[in-house]
């Protein structure tokens, strides 16, 4: 990372948690995304993780795999490799590699529903040229079978990943190893995103 404070300064409870994570990934460095979220967690990591947990694991008409695919797709069109790799890995566990790879490469030809395809088209425009998004784009997506609720969910996911892609890009997060990615993906499937523990007054996770 470009700054040493998010690399090194974490409340004591998180330091212990990082020791456990390092052990799980064979002694490798804790992924920069976690070190960032755990640095002064009340400033950003804690509320941001709660929002992402709600979006990717809370109630939705999209499956968890579809939501992970939207997150990976947004990161991919944003050309932010760290998050694109991480979330395509999670999506692959839930939807299968073939579907995810095809959707990221060429959504027009991928074996996904028309509604998901239209949603990916919509979120690409929202991520890259947000001021150009109009009610015509909404009409097009709804015409392709996307419900209003699904489209709202996709907008929220796009927003959250436009936030975290920018944080990672600004801080210069290091690429995760294959082993780290695999462990992270399994953890996110099993436990979701609410793994930033609430911090007590003495800096310990609860």
């Amino acid at each position, binding site marked *: 990372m470009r700054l040493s404070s998010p690399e090194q300064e974490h409340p004591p409870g998180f330091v212990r948690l990082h020791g456990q994570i390092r052990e799980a990934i064979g002694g490798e460095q804790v992924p920069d995304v976690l070190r960032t979220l755990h640095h002064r967690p009340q400033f950003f990591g804690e509320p941001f993780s709660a929002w992402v947990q709600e979006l990717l694991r809370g109630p939705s008409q999209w499956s968890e795999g579809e939501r992970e695919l939207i997150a990976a797709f947004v990161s991919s069109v944003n*050309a932010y490799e760290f998050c694109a790799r991480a979330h395509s890995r999670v999506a692959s566990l839930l939807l299968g590699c073939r579907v995810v790879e095809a959707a990221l490469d060429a959504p027009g030809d991928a074996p996904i529903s028309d509604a998901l395809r239209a949603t990916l088209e919509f979120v690409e425009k929202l991520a890259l040229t947000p001021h150009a*998004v109009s009610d015509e784009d909404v009409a097009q997506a709804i015409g392709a079978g996307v419900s209003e609720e699904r489209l709202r969910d996709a907008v*929220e996911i*796009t927003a959250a990943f436009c936030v975290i892609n*920018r944080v990672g890009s600004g801080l210069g997060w290091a690429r995760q190893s294959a082993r780290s990615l695999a462990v992270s993906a399994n953890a996110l499937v099993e436990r979701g995103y609410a793994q930033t523990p609430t911090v007590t007054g003495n800096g310990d996770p609860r």
Partner: protein
Amino acid sequence: MTTGTDTRLRRDTHLTRERLVAAVVDAVQGPAGRVPLVTREHAFTLARAGGESTVPSDPLLLGAARALVEAVADRAHDVPAEMVKRALAAGRSEHEVFDLIVVAAVGGGLTRRELGLAAIDSHLTQATAEDEV
């Protein structure tokens, strides 16, 4: 068919999300930040306006620091390391640079949320009006 339970669930989901987004904004503008609050507010305004806004003169948000905020808000990839170095060299501390990057990122992301949801609302208003004619 939409039932009363569906409607209540949707309303609850919307309220939950609004509360969570408000918590993110409150946090980056709250006491855990290291940059003075007024500078974070200016950086947030700048990020949400895509760099086109004129914010009041702020001694901590000039030159390299301002350029960093605008770059992070504008692009989700390839923010040059040099921009971070320049902000540090201009006298901003590591904690201040961290704050500015996060605030700019939140501003950039939430602008997209606002524009996307507004487009949906606009479409629904239009569709309802057409139905009524």
